[in-house]
């Protein structure tokens, strides 16, 4: 079972803060041309909450829990699949016409 106290809260906080700082730096350098596909991409990435649903689904739980998690799995899977597909579709449009010079 999980617990913020037994799990290493300080380490998790460190990971969160470092990832946020890294994220700020990386996003700041993303081409302004690509802000729409960026949003589609980060949304697909954060749908890695799919694995959170998998983890909860591995516990022996009540039918309420199973129902909640199964719905979550379907929602996250929709986001992952549509997110990556649409990101690639948009990026292909930019690629199709390369600058002439």
């Amino acid at each position: 079972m999980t617990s913020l106290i037994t799990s290493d809260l300080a380490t998790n906080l460190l990971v969160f803060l470092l990832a946020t700082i890294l994220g700020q730096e990386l996003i700041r350098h993303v081409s302004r041309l690509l802000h729409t596909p960026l949003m589609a991409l980060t949304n697909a990435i954060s749908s890695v909450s799919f694995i959170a649903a998998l983890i909860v689904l591995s516990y022996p739980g009540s039918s309420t829990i199973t129902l909640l998690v199964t719905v979550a799995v379907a929602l996250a899977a929709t986001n992952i699949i549509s997110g990556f597909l649409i990101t690639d579709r948009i990026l292909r449009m930019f690629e199709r016409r390369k600058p002439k010079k």
Partner: protein
Amino acid sequence: MTDVLAEYLYVLSVVLFALSLKFMSQVKTSRLGNFCAVAGMVGAIIATLSAYQVHQTGLLVGAVVIGAVVGTPIGLKVAMTAVPQRTAMSHAFGSLAVALVGAAEYYQDVATIDPASLSVLCGEMVLGFLTFAGSCIAFGKLQGLITGRPVLFKGRNVVNMTVLGGAVATAVYLVANPAMGQLIPIMAALALLFGFLMVMGIGGADMPTVIAILNSFAGLSAAALGFVLDNKLLIVAGSLDGSSGLILAIIMSQAMNRSFANILFGGFGAVAVSTQASSQTARTVQAYTVDDAAVVLQSARSVIFVPGYGMAVAQAQHAVKELADVLEARGVDVKYAIHPVAGRMPGHMNVLLAEAQVPYDQLWEMDRVNPLFPETDVAVVVGANDVTNPAAKTRPDSPLYGMPVLDVDKAKTVIFIKRSTGPGFAGVENELFYLPNTMMVFGDAKKVLTELVAAVRKMGA
């Protein structure tokens, strides 16, 4: 596979996710970035499936199949004009998924959960549910199912804060009495109501910022779930998403010269109307014909197109591209000036023009293109309005004052293609219409542009 190996696969996924954002810095490497993110996702799922024993395999497969059946057509078919709605929907799905897993985790651990974990879990659920409701309303507004006007009522902010306060109070009471699971639906309902009320009060013009803020919330709630499950991959992915939404929201609000508080609580679009039309009642607009405009374009050496969302509404992006092609064939230097809030989400105008096969090196963002207007022969404004209004620079009494705008007025001639003589959506009169170097051409953008193409071609022959 052992748990240890799964841990290392998680590390690989984290690196791939970070790299994917790095590769988004340039168009050239951007598709590689997307592939990195896909690889990271696949790695994460394989690692999780191997480290944890999932019991209900049938349900899992069924849910994934539903996800594929719904997600594939969305990914492959949604029109580029509808990408903002798709984005709002994906924020709704993502935040609801996170909120539901949070609720499941509570029911799972209710007997043993400690106050600290429960606090984070409650925060995660409140954020998840309010983002879900807010994103659904944003979807409705963008799709035109709900009015784009802000829905305001007296004491709106007091009511909203009371609802949010109620959700937080319920959460605090739950943390004090962890066994009271019946409080979860109450807390969820209050969070949903707050998200609904908040976004209902925001006008259609502010949707680019709202989408970015909801994006940030969705990411943060995923990161919070990572804390509860002690899953560092989820923490990283959630905070990357949260950072991205935050930065985009800041860029959008700066481009409109507004604070977050003003956007979330101000109810803009409704206020703006009252402060207009003070000293300009006597002025008239000079209308020109397509042929007049063609003569000017014919002698131009440099042209900058200024597209707005109205261009996409009129489905005129291909006509713009055609006119640009005709001009380029005559040796004219062609550029497109892109205001940060052009379109209905961050970067939307670039995507609409890329779809019309405009080369991306012709897309110039505001700060780079503004110094070029004084040397430009003709600026052609299509479906844009407020972002070209010089009153934002010169008239402190204008509701737009202080908002960064494109210096269209500095061009030698401005051709302004507009549907009707009425004021723009925000109700603010555009000073540009009355300048001596402005030629107003009235009519449907697509029709006018198509006629312009024909007229310029005829003159060239």
